[in-house]
């Protein structure tokens, strides 16, 4: 399990190569990279706040839950904080398993939980004005398809 929370930029290809090189017994690797989405060319930058300490613990829990649920060989979660430019990679997940289905499903699961259960908050500066990105009902609803502690942390 490789959990990284960092302000520094990263190269998704290099991270994926490192993850893959360390595996043994894997037949499938799935990775997902999230980018800072521009808003009609108007996004100046994004700033991501997080909760040091809790962030790392929450990511470890999400990764452990995935490893309990699927026959995974390894999991990687990397998430940036601080100031990011449009199209910068924000985060990535990678999963490795003997067969592809588990790797795909686990990557999907990691993304759903990262959206709503890891203490990050996105702030976008658009046309010189800062605004907090709202959580969406869709993100919250996405957790229910995994059928477990979707209610945790809700109120």
């Amino acid at each position, binding site marked *: 399990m490789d959990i990284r929370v960092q302000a520094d930029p990263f190269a998704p290809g290099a991270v994926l190569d490192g993850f893959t090189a360390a595996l043994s017994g894997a037949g499938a690797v799935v990775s997902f990279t999230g980018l800072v989405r521009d808003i009609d060319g108007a996004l100046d930058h994004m700033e991501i706040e997080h909760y040091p300490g809790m962030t790392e613990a929450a990511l470890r829990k999400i990764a452990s839950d995935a490893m309990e649920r699927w026959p995974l060989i390894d999991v990687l979660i990397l998430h940036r904080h601080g100031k990011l430019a449009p199209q910068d990679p924000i985060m990535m997940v990678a999963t490795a398993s003997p067969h592809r289905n588990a790797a795909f499903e686990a990557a999907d699961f990691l993304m759903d939980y990262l959206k709503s*259960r890891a203490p990050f908050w996105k702030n976008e500066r658009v046309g010189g004005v800062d605004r907090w990105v709202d959580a969406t009902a869709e993100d919250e609803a996405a957790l229910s398809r995994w059928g477990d502690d979707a209610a945790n942390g809700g109120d």
Partner: protein
Amino acid sequence: MKIDVRYFAWVRERIGVGHESVETDAATPRALIEELRTREARYEAAFQDITALRVAVDQELVDMDDALGTAREVAFFPPMTGG
């Protein structure tokens, strides 16, 4: 008891500090919020809609009505937007 209370994102901005030490006998996060709301307008501004908030006790997500017990750190923040 003395609790380190932390605020993030727009909750932090409305209250004006990232964390502070609070002397309280509140039994739950909800009770702590009600207590803080009576202190100053900036708390009222941050806490006017409790359903818009999430809470972590000692860095774990909990519900507003869970017991604070011997909590050392309580954090209030809006729903998270990671990924």
